[in-house]
């Protein structure tokens, strides 16, 4: 008798869940952008929203919640219902910032559901006006004669942690100097006040293309097919810096697996659209094609890598 009731309950639950994901979304979907309006993540999201509205037939509401290295918007996501109608778009900063900010009001593993890896690209190390060399091997030599300053977009940013990682892996003599965002970092690179900056292709290539900064290396084992002229860190013999930069969609913790799969599939469809493909091409980036579980592994792994690095190098202490 008991087992029949249990089966009935399960069946009922099963159908209601199935219904929930079939009818998803049954209302407007809010997507939190934890950065300012007009920034690169924001413009990616706005283009994506146009495509998602076509697929979901529901309005997408974009809310910008900038601040605290994306942690203000991310915290807001964790306080929402896990019904898929509140989502977050974020970069790898969602894995680096928790390594630095000890007083977060959420648990990055349990209170967040990684849904979909939208965009990936390698990180690129660029040099400013004071850097004489044009590639990584030359830069490594130059750094032996002159201590380098590595600019970051702020403490806890992905560029900050990547810079620390490069210093550690390449045994690079350098100091970190924090600026307020990518714009200010590039100003100081162009003015020759700081030497290097690390970010994704989307952020750095516009500056590289018109000569405002020099691309020294892609941080990958091998050259990046979309940018074959830039030396890779691997070919110079530097290993351990092969993390990729990405943009991804997250939900609040405890989302239903079927719903997560559904959203993942819809996002893949949106990314395959002409508009998004064009944007990827412009930004020298690739669409991510991972299942939620595969992406979840990368997310948890990266969180741990940055935590360990912060502890090892005494970042934020």
């Amino acid at each position: 008798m008991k087992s029949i009731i249990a089966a009935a309950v399960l069946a009922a639950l099963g159908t209601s869940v199935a219904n929930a994901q079939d009818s998803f979304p049954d209302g407007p979907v809010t997507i939190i952008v934890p950065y300012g309006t007009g920034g690169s993540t924001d413009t990616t999201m706005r283009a994506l929203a146009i495509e998602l509205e076509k697929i979901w037939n529901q309005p997408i509401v974009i809310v910008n919640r900038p601040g605290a290295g994306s942690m203000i918007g991310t915290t807001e996501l964790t306080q929402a219902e896990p019904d898929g109608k509140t989502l977050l778009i974020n970069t790898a900063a969602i894995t680096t910032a928790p390594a630095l900010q000890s007083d977060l009001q959420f648990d990055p593993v349990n209170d967040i559901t990684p849904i979909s890896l939208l965009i990936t690209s390698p990180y690129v190390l660029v040099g400013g006006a004071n850097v004489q060399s044009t590639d990584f091997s030359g830069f490594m030599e130059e750094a032996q004669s002159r201590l380098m300053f590595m600019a970051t977009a702020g403490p806890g940013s992905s560029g900050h942690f990547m810079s620390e990682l490069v210093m550690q892996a390449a045994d690079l003599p350098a100091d970190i100097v924090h600026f307020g965002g990518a714009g200010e970092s590039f100003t100081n690179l162009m003015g020759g006040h700081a030497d290097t900056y690390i970010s994704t292709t989307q952020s750095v290539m516009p500056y590289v293309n018109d000569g405002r900064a020099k691309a020294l290396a892609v941080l990958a084992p091998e050259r990046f097919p979309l940018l074959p002229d830039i030396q890779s860190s691997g070919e110079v013999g530097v290993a351990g810096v092969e993390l990729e930069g990405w943009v991804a969609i997250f939900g609040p913790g405890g989302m239903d697996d079927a719903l997560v799969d559904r959203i993942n599939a819809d996002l893949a469809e949106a990314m395959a659209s002409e508009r998004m493909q064009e944007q990827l091409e412009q930004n020298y980036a690739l669409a991510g094609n991972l299942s939620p579980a595969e992406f979840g592994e990368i997310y948890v792994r990266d969180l741990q890598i940055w935590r360990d690095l912060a502890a090892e190098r005494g970042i934020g202490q």
Partner: protein
Amino acid sequence: MELLANLALGLETAITPWNLFYCFAGVFLGTFIGVIPGVGPLAAISMLFPITFYLDPTSALIMLAGIYYGTTYGGSTASILLNIPGATSAAVTCLDGYPMAQQGRAGVALFMTTIASFVGGSIGIIILSLFSPLIAEYALRFGPADYFALMVLGLVAASTITNASPSKGLSMVVLGMLIATVGIDSQSGAARYTFGSMSLLDGFGIAALAMGLFGVGEILTSVGATRDARIDSSSAKLRNMIPTREDWRRSWKPGLRGSAIGSFFGALPGTGPSIASFMAYAVERRVSSTPERFGNGAIEGVVAPESANNAADQTAFIPTLTLGIPGSATMALMLGALMVHGIQPGPTLISQQPSLFWGLVMSFWIGNLLLVVLNLPLIGLWVRLLLVPYHYLYPAILVFVCIGAYSVRANPADVLMVLGFGVLGYVMRLAALPAAPLLLGFVLGPLVETQFRRAMVLARGDFTAILERPLAGTVLALAALLLAWTLYVAGRDFRRKARDRRSSRSGLG
């Protein structure tokens, strides 16, 4: 000749009916957003940003820019009439604008701010069209050490902008700097004085502080005090809005100086219109032969900051368009509007997108002209606002202030912060402590701290390396001279007063 051809190309772009329409829509919206206390250009442009996806990039930029500089025109209206800054860069206009209104000269003040804004804007546009690449190149030379030196000079120059005693002024500057330390530390990422609150992680907002101190403080003071309608209706007549020959004579030099100061600070990516208006005011007060008139309705104290903030608005486009570097969150939005169309602002923008750049420049002229045409007739309307008894007015003002505070970052805590700062402003009034130096400390404090710490990292902890930099060294030496001079003058005045007191006492005896 090439310039003429470029300007012609720009005019051709700017004068198409649709671009004219977007220009008008932008400045019209901007003026009203500026007048409403609290709702600033950043909130307005953020709200309109999504439609730029559907517009031609030139039109989008013309409209967003129109909102931006239109706000600065309107921003002074509430400062003058209600002692509430409509925009942060208009806060310093309260100091002399409001006393002018109390003397029945609100119309004159509004008239002169419109003219000063136009002059400042025009000079900014001329510099933008003639020297953009040159200035952009020069602005890059400013490193953290140089910004630090410049901000120190600013603090020294502006620490005595009010008539309060230097000790009161200085302590308010320090209080402002302390309030600004709340939030994430710029170099270590540690949270300072946030007590675990998410709302405090990003620190206090400048808009919340300015509106609270000036606006809510003003309202709290007036509650209980019976205000009779001191402004008689005759001041709302057109005749009383026309500045006298004396007003013009006093204003033209401050207008030019303000424009120059504004153009300079606007073109530097690390500063902006708010700092420009404070500096312009401080300079006028220093060069004036009658500094005691400042704070009591001196027309120079209105003209200088208003020409400065409008000039800064225009020259702020120099680093944005020619280097691709936004100096402020608002400018980052302008960049975003271009980037969604695949246009990357940078050194090649002017040569690759001549119709966009020159079209925008020419639309600035048109926009500034439209603003004058729009604002002058409105003066009569605004002045009539003073005829409304204040107790009917302030509930509406409070509502707008709360909406404005919320609109900046959609954080309910900001509304509470405005009210908190309002109470602080009220207490400060009771103790006769000046609010402007506090705001100045709040604006300059974080810049001084952040840039100094960056400079020390870049100098590897060697302070003398900062002094050896030609720019920073010179500016710091200037600051030291100015400080020595200020102390000397203060000492001289103090001795003179003491002597006067002694002689008057002995005279009595």
